[in-house]
């Protein structure tokens, strides 16, 4: 298995957001492999394949048709196969309720989609370069929402 690049998956139903996401990584020129899925059902179909290559970081949009990010998060956390996957919530809203719920369900970080492409690049590079082993140990509700 190749370990020289970071495997990243994004599940988001919004085409523009998927484009910003891949464009940002393209411009960042990082050694990453980005795969995107159009909703939660596609994502889980892929992850549930036995030979699926599991991502290092999974970006989950919350508001998706068919299967929401919250449902995906729940399924993933219930399956020990995915215990090493870092889960980043990637959502338009940053309501207290959503932040609280995803934190309790075991997500690693909450990202509010920025409205500036430069900021987006900065956020994504930050998340990818974070030492998650270390970060997860010190995780608490205050630093759960990513602030830049």
């Amino acid at each position, binding site marked *: 298995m190749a370990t020289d690049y970071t495997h990243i998956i994004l599940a988001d139903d*919004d085409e*523009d*957001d998927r484009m*910003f996401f891949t464009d940002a990584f393209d411009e960042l020129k990082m050694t990453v492999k980005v795969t995107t899925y159009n909703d939660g059902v596609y994502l889980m179909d892929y992850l549930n394949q036995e030979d699926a290559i599991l991502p290092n970081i999974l970006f989950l949009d919350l*508001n998706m048709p068919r299967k929401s990010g919250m449902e995906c998060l729940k399924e993933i956390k219930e399956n020990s196969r995915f215990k090493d996957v870092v889960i980043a919530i990637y959502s*338009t*809203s940053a*309501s207290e309720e959503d932040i609280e719920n995803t934190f309790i369900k075991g997500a690693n970080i909450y990202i509010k*989609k*920025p*409205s*500036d*492409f*430069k900021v*987006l690049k900065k956020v994504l590079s930050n998340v990818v370069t974070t030492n998650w082993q270390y970060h997860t140990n010190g995780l608490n509700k205050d630093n759960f929402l990513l602030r830049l």
Partner: protein
Amino acid sequence: MIIKRIYKSSWFVKVVFVVSLFAIIFIAGLGYKHITNLSKSTEMVIHTYKVNVELEQILSYLKDSETGQRGYIITQDSLYLKPFIEGRKKVNNSFAELKYLTSDNPEQQKNLKELSSLIDKRLDNLEIASNYAANDQTDLTRFKDVFQEGKNYMGAIRNKLNYMISIENDLLKKRKEEYVSDARFTPVFLYSLILLTLVLMYAAYAKINSNLEKLKKSNQQLEIFKESTNQSEIINKHGSWRWNVEEDSFYFSDNLFRLLGEEPGSFAQTIENFMKFVHPEDVEKLSSQVDEMKENKDLPFIVYRVIHKSGDTRYLKAYGKSTVNSEGITQLLGTTTDITDEIDHYNTLEKRNQELELNNKELQAFNYVASHDLQEPLRKIQTFLSRLEDREQDNFSESGKKYVERINNAASRMRLLIDDLLQYSRTNKSDEILKNSDINKLLEDAQQDLAEVIVAKNATITTVKIPEMKVIPFQIQQLFGNLIGNSLKYSAKDRNPIIAISYDKVEASDDQQLSKALYDEYHRITISDNGIGFEQEYAEKIFTLFNRLHNKDEYSGTGIGLSICKKIVDNHSGFIFAKGEPNIGAVFSIYLPLV
């Protein structure tokens, strides 16, 4: 005072009647005694006369005997002896009579005895003298002696008789006196007693009369009260009933009939008839509660439905309580009220509440739309713009660059509006709980959020120590954030901002602005600055939604920030006031109740 009290007391009449009764019995007794005395006195007088007559009689018989004896002595004719012999017999008869008459008087008995011996001696003497005469021995000295002796005896008898008569006369005199005093005293006493009784009877009569008058008045009052009760029953839609459990008899007030949609008295007052009106679904419930009432004698509130003949369904509420009346009869007193209107109002209110809840839900849904769905396209517009600026900068003409910049400004402003509106709608009291919070910490956090601007504007903020308060922490932090942010935003261009935060405790009565205060004491936190200030006439207007005093080209803003402040303070049952002076500064005073 005491007399008045006695007169007023309820037992007065009874006492008067008892006293009068005794007085009459006494009078009757006294009258009887008086009459008995009178007849006794008469008897006594007759008795005395009889005694006297008999005594005189004795003397006269003795004289007859004496005369007969003398005739015999002179004539020696035995014819004259006859009265002498008869005289003795007659004296004996009179003696027996006298003995009987004076049987109650020991003194006279004693006298009688002495008299008897004297008379015996006299008669014996007469006999001796007669014997002398028969033997013709009248010339003897002996005879003369006997004769003399007889004369002496006669004198003694006469004395004795006179003495006895005088005793009887004395007795008569004494009895006469007694009788006279009795006769004089008794009528006066009786007369005054009758008068007194009459007075008492009159007082009793007056008392009964006044009692009757009072009773009449009370009856009138009761009548009025009954009528007003009837009216109040009609106006309040309630009826009353009484239930004598032992006799199982009912009394329904007029309005109770009306509550059932019937004319008063239109059916017999029984529980069965009443039950006919009860809604079929409620009959069982009501019956079981009626049975319970019989046992417990106290009725809890019952709500049940009745159906009028017209088909109307009405809701009734009943309450009953057992009481014991003055005759010792236990009965249940109850009140039944028509609560249909209340229930209708309640239902309407419930419906309104549901509508309101629905509205709130819609509002929340709108919040979500605003926070998510509206933000999404806006965010994309902004991201695309940032990409345009980043990558296509060189391909734009000057005016193209200007347009992009304008679009960017407009988009930023829209974001600000959406964010502020969201914040405003989130600042609801909802179910946030007030908790003891360190105000100093909240103030510090608020400053922390504004750290960048504070540094950029080179602002000085001074604070004092503020005690703990019971607040919704995140709202108070936001309140401080908004106010300090405001001071920083509206700072004067020619001087560094100085913001002073102070605290004190005030009595609501001491502060004119707190005329509508609900609490006695308030915390007052004031935030004053040296910014551009405002005209005092806008002091209230600035708290209304979307109200702005400045053109948005001069100062960015949505006109929502101070509205949020006002809402937060309202949530805490507090007050916020602003004071401004153009180009000098603004002072915001926050009053939070001391609880």
